[in-house]
């Protein structure tokens, strides 16, 4: 478990991280998102001590790097694997040698290294490339090798720094599938830094949105997406802007997993016997549930009737006002 309390970091006068409070539980997939320069990669590096912080505390299973020597931190890092945007493999070593490197550094016996490397390459599904050099591998294959290397010392946490940002969408999906498999079968917690909201939406359990070194929103992914805090809207930018009709009143209904399959609209049309038009609708798949939004355009005099009906069936709704 990673517990971060009131963490602060600055370079000279510039505050990189301010008042960070965050808890990441065992086995969780936690997304850290924000624009470039928001401090997400720095926060990630504070977890395994690649970056030091100035105030506050950061404990990984009770171990706070602030209170330990460099030598103790070195041992502590065995518990945390890390992968990077550009894979960070040794170009002049083979796949086998790359995966074996951490174990060699910790003086594992040769036979054990051999067994573990083969086992890991099987997990990441790249056994056939065992004696190739990274140069002859594709981006996705290189990241698989990097994942195998990160898992070699049996860590409990895997840190991913923009691990899919250099990959095409299809390869990204296959790497995410692999990471989820690792999370589920080995119970390894994953902290995933990214700027791609689509990845957070389908891959992460929880998310924390950083802006200028501060946490603007955090929580379960589907809650964040359904509540749409300002920080999320800032990140998504214009992507999600809806064009609404300027006549009548627009009502937005949010479906959560409980009523997503209910026939709210058709029931309402039948029971109330009033006309409305469907302006916009969207359903999205999250790592653990499905959420949907519908925007209706209703004549102004019918708003109270529709509102009462929606309240009665306990649907979440709000009236949207055009800004112009």
């Amino acid at each position: 478990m990673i517990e971060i309390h009131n963490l602060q970091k600055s370079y000279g006068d510039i505050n990189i991280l301010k008042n960070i409070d965050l808890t990441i539980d065992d086995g969780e997939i936690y997304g850290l998102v924000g624009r470039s320069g928001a401090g997400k990669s720095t926060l990630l590096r504070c977890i395994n001590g690649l970056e030091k912080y100035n105030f506050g505390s950061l404990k990984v299973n009770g171990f706070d790097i602030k209170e330990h020597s460099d030598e103790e931190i070195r041992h502590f890092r065995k518990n945390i694997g890390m992968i990077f945007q550009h894979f960070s493999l040794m170009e002049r070593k083979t796949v086998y040698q790359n995966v074996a490197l951490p174990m060699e550094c910790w003086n594992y016996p040769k036979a054990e290294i051999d067994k573990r490397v083969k086992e890991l390459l099987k997990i990441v599904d790249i056994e056939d490339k065992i004696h190739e050099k990274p140069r002859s591998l594709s981006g996705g294959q290189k990241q698989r090798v990097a994942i195998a290397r990160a898992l070699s010392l049996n860590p409990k946490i895997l840190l991913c720094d923009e691990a899919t940002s250099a990959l095409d969408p299809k390869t990204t999906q296959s790497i995410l599938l692999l990471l989820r498999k690792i999370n589920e079968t080995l119970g390894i917690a994953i902290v995933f830094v990214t700027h791609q909201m689509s990845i957070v939406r389908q891959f992460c359990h929880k998310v924390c949105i950083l802006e200028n070194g501060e946490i603007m929103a955090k929580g379960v992914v589907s809650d964040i997406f359904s509540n749409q805090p300002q920080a999320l809207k800032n990140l998504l930018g214009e992507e999600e802007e809806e064009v609404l009709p300027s006549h009548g009143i627009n009502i937005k209904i949010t479906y959560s997993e409980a009523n997503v399959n209910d026939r709210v609209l058709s029931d309402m049309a039948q029971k109330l016997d009033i006309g409305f038009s469907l302006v916009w609708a969207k359903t999205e798949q999250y790592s653990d549930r499905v959420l949907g939004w519908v925007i209706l355009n209703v004549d102004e005099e019918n708003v109270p009737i529709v509102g009462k009906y929606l309240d009665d069936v306990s649907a979440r709704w709000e009236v949207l006002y055009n800004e112009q």
Partner: protein
Amino acid sequence: MSNNHAYDLLHTILVPEFLKTLYMVISATVLSTIIGMLLAVILIITYKEGLKPNKYIYEILTTFINIVRSFPFIILIVAIIPVTRAIVGSSIGEKAAIIPLTIAGAPFIARIIEGSLREVDKELIEAVKSFGATNFQIIFKVMLPEAVPSVISGITLAIISILGCTAMAGAVGAGGLGAIAITYGYANFDNTIMYGTVCVLIILVQIIQSIGNFLYKVLK
């Protein structure tokens, strides 16, 4: 010029002096590389973004290297005669020339290796730190092996520049091909010998560069 004269020239002068040049270049390169490597490793560790930043050690070392590198080689030979005498026992001959050649070569090679090490991907170094490697392992197991091709092409450059310096050392009594070109060729108004020696040097440089390129290709 009779055939006999050319034969004598080849056997009594060109071949032994060529071997002397080879001896000076190889010894000076080996010594410079060892010392240069050591200096480069210290520079890279103490550099402000290095593994153990230390402003004082870095600044002192870097200033020292710059000072040595500012000496024109011919002045360096003369300036360090006392040092050469103390180590070799003489300031004349090819053995004596190795000392100034090494002193000039080591800082050059140190800068080349420092540059190569600095080019090693920062993310790779972070990755290696992230699984708890020691600084010793980071340098010797990761940075140096990754930098080998670029170190090799740097050393090729250094060998050729050391070869150039041996000619200058020849002017102050070290012997070697440079000495032949000057004493037997230039001073004796014998263009055949002068240009002949230059041709040998050209061929030598070509060979060194080709070997360097080949090694770079294979290792990369």
